């Protein structure tokens, strides 16, 4: 499926467009934040766009993903509506989470995105659980778990890998190794290549260039096919780099300007565009069109988002529990819960 990227112009331009949408969405978010129109905290994945893009193009309807605090890219790559995403980040009632979740909880459950997660490694067991549903129901679906290098240090990660491998669950763990967990360098933290950890769980582990959308697409395609065939989980370490600080408070004390500059030179979008052009699959006009279509889409999303209404605080208490058939008829209880 993913080799199509270098053969099928439409597929290639679609992937390029996805990367542009992610990049430009986050640049817009950064801008809105800088202008005081967005609040809270932001984790930008600029520079890492190839990973969600390359991975998600292998997924079919019904496949699930779990995402992270740095989750805009996953959400976009899985096909979410940009307007509702932007509305959410702008804390509006027409946002995906009705303004209650924001960036760290962005989710589009309809496209199988079970949600960003403010908890490092919080989504890893959840992805395994989605894989369990897939296995138990025999629905043929696969769950992809995106997580960072820092997440590998969490007990949740270990327990989920242990259980997923024990039960041969259809799950693919995609580690976005951007080389830092906030300020902790993955090299100092883990001593080994992260993909080397897979062997300890008896599952395949592979390291790929996370800035090469084709490499990511190919590696994840193999892992997803394997999972879909009932052969169990895989672990893919996609090495990349985050251009921006961890979040807005980051002074970048733990890394050098040179390192940042060097990685900016390995821009996954530019690299893919260049490769497509070189190969003659597409021409410059098509590349430009992909970029400007993305730009238009982001612009529209900002318009959509800013036009949204604020959520009503009066609806807050009703939002905590899903209504249960029985409780709904019990007015005494409703009173009690006030």
């Amino acid at each position, binding site marked *: 499926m993913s080799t199509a990227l270098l053969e099928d112009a439409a597929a290639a331009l679609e992937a390029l467009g996805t990367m542009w949408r992610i990049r430009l969405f986050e640049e817009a978010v950064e801008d809105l934040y800088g202008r005081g129109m967005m609040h809270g905290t932001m984790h930008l994945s600029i520079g890492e766009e190839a990973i969600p893009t390359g991975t998600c193009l292998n997924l079919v309807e019904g496949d699930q993903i779990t995402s992270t605090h740095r989750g805009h890219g996953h959400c976009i790559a899985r096909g979410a509506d940009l307007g509702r995403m932007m509305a959410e980040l702008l804390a509006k009632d027409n946002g995906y989470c009705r303004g209650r*979740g924001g960036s760290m909880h962005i989710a589009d459950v309809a496209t199988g995105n079970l949600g960003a997660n403010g908890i490092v490694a919080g989504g890893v067991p959840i992805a395994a*659980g989605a894989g369990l549903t897939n296995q138990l129901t025999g629905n043929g679906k696969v769950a992809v778990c995106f997580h960072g290098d820092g997440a590998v240090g969490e007990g949740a990660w270990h327990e989920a890998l242990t259980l997923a491998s024990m039960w041969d669950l259809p799950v693919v763990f995609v580690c976005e190794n951007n080389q830092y967990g906030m300020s902790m360098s993955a090299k100092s933290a883990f001593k080994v290549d992260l993909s080397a950890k897979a062997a300890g769980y008896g599952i395949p582990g592979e390291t790929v260039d996370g800035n090469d959308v084709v490499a990511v697409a190919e590696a994840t395609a193999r892992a997803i096919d394997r999972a879909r065939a009932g052969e169990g989980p895989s672990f893919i370490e996609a090495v990349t780099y985050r251009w921006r600080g961890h979040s807005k408070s980051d002074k970048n004390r733990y890394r050098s300007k040179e390192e940042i500059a060097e990685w900016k030179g390995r821009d996954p979008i530019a690299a893919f565009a260049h490769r497509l052009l070189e190969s003659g699959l597409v021409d410059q006009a098509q590349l430009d069109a992909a970029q400007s279509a993305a730009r238009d889409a982001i612009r529209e999303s900002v318009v959509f988002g800013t036009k949204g209404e604020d959520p009503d605080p009066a609806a807050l208490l009703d939002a905590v529990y899903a209504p249960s058939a029985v409780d709904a008829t019990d007015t005494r209880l409703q009173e009690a819960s006030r």
Partner: protein
Amino acid sequence: MSMREMTYSEAIREAMALAMTADERVFLMGEDVGLYGGAFGVENDLIDRFGAERVRDTTISELGIVGMGVGAAVTGMRPIVEIQFSDFTAQAMDQIANQAAKLHFMVGGQATVPLVIRAPGGSGTGAAAQHSQSLEAWFTCIPGLKVVMPSNATDAAELLLAALEDPNPVIVLEHKLLYKQSFEVPETFAVGRLGVGRIEREGSDLTIVATGVEVQRALEAAEQLAADGISAEVIDPRTLKPLDLPLIVSSVVKTGRALLVQESVRFGGFMGEISASIVESEAFGHLQAPVRRLCGLDVPIPYNPDLEKAAVPQVGDIVREATALVREW
């Protein structure tokens, strides 16, 4: 209604079997729930009846198991996750509190997490400080979670069925001492109602609100109190969250006195919530005595059996406190 005898564990097992038979989305997952039959024998032969796919033995990974329960629930299943001792919910708190309980809210209602967690608590088995806690206070303060504490076999079964019907995560805090006890239960279990308490015994001099294993002790105490001319009303809230406060308040309005009895520690324990809520309610004007709590001592549960008994309210303690509350005020 025709009745039969059954232990608390048998009732839970029957409820799980009923649910698994009726709904193929229901499955059970936990440490030693399959081959071993459950650390307390609750599952016994369920694995033979429903197979290892639906009665799943896991590794020792509480956080992972609950997290998988969340993932399975949000994608359409109805998992029951057993935590072998409720003390080990400590390992799983992130998935319970930060994931299961909040997901529905955080994603603006896009998803629900119909997850049931069963976890036995309580002291009395000589299992010491890390296997004997009553940790309901950790859960009652988590918005998005429901908390059930069945004190008898029927409730254990019927509230479990209710929990499985509920679209929200529910933690059921069973009690280890009750597992082997026999109770009269109805011929067939119905689906219970979460959030509805029960007056276990009517009375007029004071209201005793008791939870879990203390319900029986309160009933025994009420019997002794009656012999002594004190008429105690005993209420079992059954569900701690949502709490059937109106039931408690109307009882206290009637009796003018409330004694709140729990096995768990006093300081920061759940009975503080009930006490505060009574005082904030219309019952305040009817109080003839201060609302009183009778709780476990503020200590980890000790190993020595006498110390262990001394650490939690016994029948005699309830009688003494209730008498004081009625006679001294």
